[in-house]
């Protein structure tokens, strides 16, 4: 890099390189006259044309001219900076010129290719664009890129499968990792489940090795029953305050953060007789009954899909419930006996048995806790009349069965082979659940017969969507990362950066960014870990010199800039003035356009530079 001071004080000596890009530019713009014109512009000491400026002879002509003509500003007029700027900037750096003294003028995408039938006018525009570039180049300043050290410690918020996967991946790479889990134990949502689809194993059994690995890993520190209370800093240098329930806050120094806080099951209050009739349960409650082997005696079970999702209470499809319902339907058919209440198998009660007491209490307690209310006013579960259990009928009321992918379609077919009935309903005719003569019944509209039918059932299982954690908003404020419309965390780019947040150094995995099944959560956890490990492995981050600069002589400390910055890249310093955290600043310029005192400017996108460039377009040709 050249001596910074020398460039600041020297009079600009500009070199202009006009590229023909074969005939891409040369065919539609009179390149030789444009290069000649460039020589007439103020401070331009050298101008030439190249067939391909990006080819090796073009690049060496830049290097040579910098040396020979002592250039301290370089302009290439060719294609788009979005693809070729790094190449030319590197060439300048190689020749000892600070890369921020390079200016790109786009005369291909923005000129020759869009004005192919007007050579004169296109040539005039190319001249204007170069004049604008020269006006800008004259005001450019060399910039230093700031290197910031990265604390090689990771923090994972949430100890479910995605959080644990992320933590293990990072820990295996050798980085110390903290897991903050608000619950008393690891495992998250999966702990509640009975078995996992496609596998035959129990859910607890399946994730036990992962939990054991987390607990036994020398690089992982567990903070159970704890939550994040405060977050300060930026990529590489976060100070996170965590506290156990009611305990004292302690500070952790971490470099990167993975958010894996999971999701909750939607509580279908007021839908399909939930909390109104006994034996109307959600999918997860049903799994708990199965897992505890406390299922009451059943003859007929109805699953109702899409309860509350897809435009009812939430807009989205919860993605996993079709397959979870199919799994449970198969479980009932295959292994009903194995999940019955212990008393059932002994055959002590035959005709009329209550819903198993223990399970009922547990489920009522869960519902109470989720509603945050006391236990008053909750009636005991009513008794349910049941018939003999030698044959069990399972009906899945669905809007569409979304058994996507390789395995799920086969599972769906398997369920059909086992005579699980799939009955389609539409939003115009939602099934109704009601109680008649002490018997739970479902009325539905048969789409093929075009008839309303009623069937008695012993249990109704409501497939409700996963919904965002109610406290996701608090965490999003602490971390300054966005939530989407449905309250899930929002990634930086839906296709290309699915586990990054737009804010550097913070990553997202699992169901806190939307419904996902276990393998998907593991994939996301591992992906987030590998993304988070990049700056930690590198040891530093280099911030592009594209940031806000605060003029303390103008700043009044009003704090408006801090409010508008989407990255938390501004804070007040000890003098009460705004201060830019360069490593966190992305250079969008919102604070600069906002600052009521005009105290904030952007490096190399100053008002003066932008106005000079734009106004040069309005000048009559010299």
């Amino acid at each position, binding site marked *: 890099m050249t001596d910074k001071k020398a460039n600041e004080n020297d009079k600009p000596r500009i070199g202009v390189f006009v590229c023909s890009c074969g005939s891409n530019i040369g065919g539609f713009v009179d390149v030789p006259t444009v290069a000649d014109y460039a020589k007439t512009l103020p401070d331009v000491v050298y101008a030439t044309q190249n067939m391909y400026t990006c080819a090796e002879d073009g690049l060496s002509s830049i290097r040579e001219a910098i040396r020979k003509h002592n250039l301290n500003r370089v302009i290439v007029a060719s294609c788009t900076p979005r693809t070729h700027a790094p190449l030319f900037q590197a060439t300048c750096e190689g020749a000892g010129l600070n890369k921020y003294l390079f200016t790109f003028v786009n005369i291909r995408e923005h000129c020759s290719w869009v004005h192919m039938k007007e050579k004169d006018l296109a040539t005039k525009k190319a001249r204007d664009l170069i004049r*604008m570039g020269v006006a800008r180049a004259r005001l450019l300043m060399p910039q230093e890129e700031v290197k910031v050290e990265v604390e090689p410690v990771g923090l994972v918020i949430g100890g479910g499968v995605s959080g644990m996967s992320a933590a293990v991946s990072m820990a295996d790479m050798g980085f110390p990792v903290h897991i903050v889990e608000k619950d008393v134990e690891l495992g998250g949502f999966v702990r509640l489940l009975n078995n996992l689809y496609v596998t035959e194993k129990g859910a607890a059994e399946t994730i036990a090795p992962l939990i054991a690995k987390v607990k036994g890993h020398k690089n992982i520190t567990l903070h159970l029953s704890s939550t994040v209370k405060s977050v300060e800093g930026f990529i590489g240098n976060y100070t996170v305050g965590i506290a156990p329930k009611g305990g004292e806050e302690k500070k952790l120094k971490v470099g990167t953060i993975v958010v894996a806080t999971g999701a909750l099951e939607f509580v279908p209050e007021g839908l399909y007789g939930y909390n109104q009739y006994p034996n109307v349960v959600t999918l997860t409650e049903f799994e708990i009954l199965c897992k505890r082997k406390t299922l009451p005696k059943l003859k007929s079970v109805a699953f109702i899909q899409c309860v509350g999702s897809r435009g009812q209470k939430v807009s989205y499809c919860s993605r996993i419930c079709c397959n979870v319902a199919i799994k449970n339907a198969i479980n009932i058919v295959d292994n009903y006996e194995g999940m019955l209440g212990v008393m059932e198998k002994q055959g002590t009660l035959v005709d009329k048995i209550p819903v198993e007491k223990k399970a009922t209490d547990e489920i009522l307690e869960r519902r109470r806790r989720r509603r945050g209310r006391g236990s008053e006013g909750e009636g005991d579960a009513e008794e349910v009349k049941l018939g003999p259990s030698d044959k069990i009928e399972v009906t899945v009321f669905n809007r569409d069965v979304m058994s996507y992918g390789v395995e799920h379609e086969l599972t769906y077919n398997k369920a059909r082979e086992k005579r699980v009935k799939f009955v389609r309903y539409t939003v115009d005719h939602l099934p109704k659940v009601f109680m008649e003569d002490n018997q739970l019944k479902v009325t539905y509209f048969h789409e093929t017969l075009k008839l309303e039918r009623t069937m008695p059932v012993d249990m109704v299982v409501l497939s409700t969507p996963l919904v965002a954690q109610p406290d996701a908003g608090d965490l999003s404020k602490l971390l300054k990362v966005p939530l989407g419309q449905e309250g899930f965390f929002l990634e930086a780019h839906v296709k290309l950066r699915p586990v990054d947040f737009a804010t550097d150094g913070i990553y997202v995995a699992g169901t806190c960014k939307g419904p996902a099944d276990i393998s998907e959560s593991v994939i996301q956890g591992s992906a987030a870990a590998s993304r988070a490990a990049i700056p930690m492995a590198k040891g530093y981050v280099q911030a592009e010199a594209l940031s806000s600069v605060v003029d303390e002589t103008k700043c009044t400390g009003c704090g408006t800039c801090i409010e508008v910055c989407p990255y938390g890249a501004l804070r007040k310093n000890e003098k009460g003035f705004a201060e830019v955290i360069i490593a966190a600043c992305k250079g*969008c310029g919102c604070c600069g356009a906002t600052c009521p005192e005009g105290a904030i400017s952007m490096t190399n996108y100053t008002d003066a530079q932008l106005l000079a460039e734009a106004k040069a377009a*309005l000048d009559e040709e010299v």
Partner: protein
Amino acid sequence: MADKTSGEWEPKVIGFLCNWCSYAGADLCGVSRYQYPTNIRAVRVMCSTRISPHLVLDIFKAGADGVLLGGCHIGDCHYITGNYYTEKRVRLMKRLLEESGLDADRLRLEWVSASEGEKFSKVVTEFTEHIRKLGPSNVKKDEKLMARVAAADDASESFRLRALSGKEFGLVTKGNVYNNKLDPAELDRIIDSATEEEFERSLILELSRTKPRSVKELGGIMELPTDKVLRHIVVLRQKNMITMEHPEGFTPTYKTIEIGGEQ
């Protein structure tokens, strides 16, 4: 050079395009060879949120016939919320242009994504033709108009309008310090009335810069009732921005106090 380019008036259109969407959309437009009129001269900025009202109004002062701002679609901003602020600021810019008497249609905000190459050509073609219909901006020839556009520019730099346009988005989405979310329509009314006041005050300062003027004279030029002009002058005198001169006879006149050494 055999020049078809001189002679007849051609619209001068300046574009400020954000790096991530509109500039990329313009690139794709080129790659796809969608043609559009040659009038536009684009300046690349990282985000449309960078464009303060001053940048746009100063460009109009310099004689631009039209200014096109291009950003990412709402919700797609590379910088998360940048374009929400752009939208608010453009509303303020248009209000100020209306005050100045320059057609607010000379400024246009368009969302063009990186995949909308064809849209970019359509937007530029349509906007250029629209400016052609509006005819040349007379800012540089019409002294009165120039004073009014300069006043609009000054008003845009006032603490009140900058603070309001910066805080507007937060006030309607996140709420104020009391956690009350403000009604956007109500806030618009507040900003509109502040815009009118700041513009009128800036115009008084602009008009009284070169020559001391009486309230009656100012009222005449500005087509404002004299009591309104007087009220502005009281505020400006409190702020020490204008001074009373030559109170001899019966008609005091007022002259702008120049701050700093810029003039």
